[in-house]
């Protein structure tokens, strides 16, 4: 058994920032990550990170109040307003800190950090480094983590939480390089494992975005909040679903339909391409559904040609490379074929503004958490911000929590038997007959999510989808493991994670069917307006060991700063 005061699961932006905060306070902290931290999904973020710096000539009188308001309105008022205010207030400080740590932000002529317009924002407040902002921020924090000599256990697949007397005391992990399961004990665990985008078969997310941290927390009784709210990005590359940043539209790119029109004219003539993502994605999908995709097909064009080669090469070099490599299209010469795809998980582990969950010793930050600052729809540029703001806050909160503990020795027996139980579970999985192919079930589930819980939802479609998911859930009992031992056993990881992904899918599905309204990314054709009287509340999904179905509960949204209003752009 290995012990650290604090264990951070996940080495993306949130996990790194949390670990840095704890380490700087003198706490013994270690990161466990499925991939080297520099390879985390955070690095795929492109467009930028919001903060009301007021550096842009058109945004001089921007303020944290305006940032918070845009966030709340963008989230269709399901946002906890005090949390959005906190995030907007923390934002400038963490941007300057990232600059002081070497983040290669792009610059304005006066040498200040460059900012660009982004969807749903009243001011150009999205700070960026070309179109590789996530990569730059991620590497900056990896560098800081090395500088601070933070212990990193790389290529560790954390498979369950250790809980003793209702307190989280560590994790069990599969060591991918050396093989075997091992218990890591800790006085506090911070989950920072990202979203569950891979439950959909059309996603911008990395292969490791399986929601593993969410389902680990779910299985020990921690509720997941607002899981029915899934963001679909308007512009994924047609054949690979790789992200084409909102920054492309922020820089002036057009969305063009099969008739050659700027399609947003029909829907949001004022904000045009810079409407929030939920609205833009639905607009594109409506064009496709009504036969106005390119050549009547299921995509539209993201046209950057009018920006000119110089601007594309300076501001959007990354998406140009991606379009060339993955779609065979040079955006300087041709428009890019794009289509809406799953992108971000608004829901997640229910936490407060400091990352604390209902379980003592268990914290969460970043996409796997739901604070909630994104409500029903996240604004572009707020996810990178969330990772660093709430990573830092969770790290600081854990330090405070440790100070309150009198007995700092995790229970060795519980930890030891947790690792044993994990090994046993894997052995049992390997010994099974195995009449079902886990990858077929996986393909079935991801297709069900795309076909039944996508941009436009209605009761009959969702019910059919739910039935399909429960059928998959039933058949999951008949999967087995072809190979249980060894090192870098990705067959085992992909099999183990599948059952959890399926439960995340069920939380989305059950939550979505019950919520009879349209709010942000959750749009129902059979209940197509927002219903504040009945549904201005957060969904909580609890794991029920006796039923395949999650138990749903609700809690109020924190209001009080901004008045409710109709969401118009």
């Amino acid at each position, binding site marked *: 058994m290995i012990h650290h005061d604090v264990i951070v699961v996940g080495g993306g932006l949130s996990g790194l920032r949390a670990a840095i905060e704890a380490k700087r306070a003198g706490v013994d902290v270690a990161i466990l990550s499925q*991939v*080297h931290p*520099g*390879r*985390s*999904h955070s*690095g*795929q973020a492109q467009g930028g990170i919001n903060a009301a*710096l007021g550096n842009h000539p058109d945004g001089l009188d921007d303020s944290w109040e305006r940032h918070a308001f845009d966030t709340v309105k963008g989230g269709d008022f399901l946002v906890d307003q005090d949390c959005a205010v906190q995030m907007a207030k923390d934002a400038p400080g963490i*941007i*300057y800190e990232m*600059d*002081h*740590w*070497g983040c*290669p*932000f*792009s*610059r*304005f*002529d*006066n*040498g*200040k*950090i460059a900012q660009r317009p982004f969807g749903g924002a009243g001011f150009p407040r999205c700070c960026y*480094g070309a179109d*590789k902002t996530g*990569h*730059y921020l991620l*590497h*900056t924090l990896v*560098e*800081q983590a*090395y*500088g601070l000599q933070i212990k990193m256990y790389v290529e560790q697949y954390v498979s369950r939480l250790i809980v003793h007397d209702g307190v989280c005391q560590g994790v069990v992990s599969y060591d991918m*390089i050396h*093989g075997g399961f091992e218990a890591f004990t800790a006085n506090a665990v911070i989950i920072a494992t990202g979203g569950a985008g891979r439950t959909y078969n059309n996603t911008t997310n*990395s*292969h*490791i975005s399986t929601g593993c941290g969410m389902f680990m927390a779910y299985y020990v009784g921690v509720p997941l909040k607002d899981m029915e709210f899934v963001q679909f990005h308007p512009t994924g590359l047609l*054949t*690979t679903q*790789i*992200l084409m940043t909102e920054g492309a539209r922020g820089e002036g790119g057009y969305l063009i339909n099969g008739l050659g029109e700027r399609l947003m004219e029909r829907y949001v003539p004022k904000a045009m391409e810079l409407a929030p993502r939920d609205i833009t994605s639905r607009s594109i999908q409506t064009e496709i559904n009504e036969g106005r995709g390119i050549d009547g097909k299921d995509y539209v064009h993201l046209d950057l040609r009018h920006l000119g080669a110089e601007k594309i090469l300076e501001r959007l070099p*990354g998406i140009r*490379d*991606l379009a060339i*490599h*993955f779609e065979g299209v040079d955006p300087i010469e041709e428009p890019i074929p794009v289509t809406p795809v799953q992108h971000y998980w608004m829901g997640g582990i229910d936490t407060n503004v400091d990352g604390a969950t209902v379980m003592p010793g268990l914290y969460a930050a970043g996409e796997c958490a739901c604070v909630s600052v994104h409500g029903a729809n996240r604004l572009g540029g707020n996810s990178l911000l969330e990772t660093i703001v709430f990573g830092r806050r969770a790290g600081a909160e854990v330090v405070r929590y440790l100070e309150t503990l009198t007995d700092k020795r995790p229970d060795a027996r519980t930890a030891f038997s947790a690792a044993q139980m994990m090994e046993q579970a894997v052995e049992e999985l390997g010994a099974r007959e195995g009449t079902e192919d886990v*990858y077929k079930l996986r393909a079935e589930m991801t297709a069900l999510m795309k076909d039944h819980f996508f941009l436009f939802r209605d009761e009959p479609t969702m019910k059919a989808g739910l039935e399909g998911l429960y059928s998959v859930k039933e058949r999951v009992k008949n999967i087995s*493991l*072809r*190979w249980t031992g*060894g*090192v*870098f*056993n*990705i*067959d085992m990881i992909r099999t183990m994670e599948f059952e959890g992904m399926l439960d995340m899918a069920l939380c989305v599905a059950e939550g979505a069917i019950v919520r009879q309204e349209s709010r942000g990314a959750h749009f129902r054709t059979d209940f197509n307006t927002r219903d504040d009287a009945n549904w201005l509340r957060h969904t909580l999904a609890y794991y029920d060991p006796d039923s395949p179905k999650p138990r749903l509960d609700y809690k109020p949204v924190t209001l009080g700063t901004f008045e409710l209003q109709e969401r118009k752009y």
Partner: protein
Amino acid sequence: MPDIKFRLKRQDPRDKKNPGPHWEEYTVHYEGENLTVLEGLFHIQEKFDGSLSFRYCCRASVCGSCAMYINGAYRLACQTNVKHLDTDLITVEPMPHLPLVKDMVVDMDEFFAKYEYVMPWLIRQSPAPEKEIIQSPKERKKIDMPVDCILCGSCYSACPSAWGEENYLGPAALLKAHRFEVDTRDEGGKERIARWNSERGVYRCHTIMNCVEACPKELNPTEGIQWLKRAAVRRKLFGKAK
């Protein structure tokens, strides 16, 4: 798309019965128009052999996980569309000259130890300003190339100087050193310089330029290393590196 034959170099050094390298062939049938090598590997792992090991993450050429030796060249498996290889036989090997963990997975510990050794973080001596440190677009441009490194290890695996001298820091670590030395915000000074301005540092680079050829992000580590060599001389002569 016709059936594609994948020829994979397999090896599990822990397998007592068969610890050596051997080749295995799989035929991947694909309906669509595009198939990346990474998708092919997933297909093989799912359908034919669950024991196949390889690294994967972003599948969008930014995480640096899946650098492999594919049809005789360093490539990211995710970025390589088989149709661009103009052949229906795809040969995939782990990156050579690195210790093997299993199949396509190589041991990157030494690679990251050398990365860490060059002190790859911004070092400041002056107190932090209240807002950002001012850096002009021209100054920012100097770090354009090195900040795009994804630490995939291709250059390090491809470098003959690193094959011959195990203590040589190699192109990726030195490019990272260059990234900070060239950054106008950095005040690392003597501390970091001693790390790369040494026998195991820049002078082991003989401008063979394999690293440039190997880099899947089309970066130029050799250029960065030569900049460092010149900076060392400038510092000696004028007391200033930049």
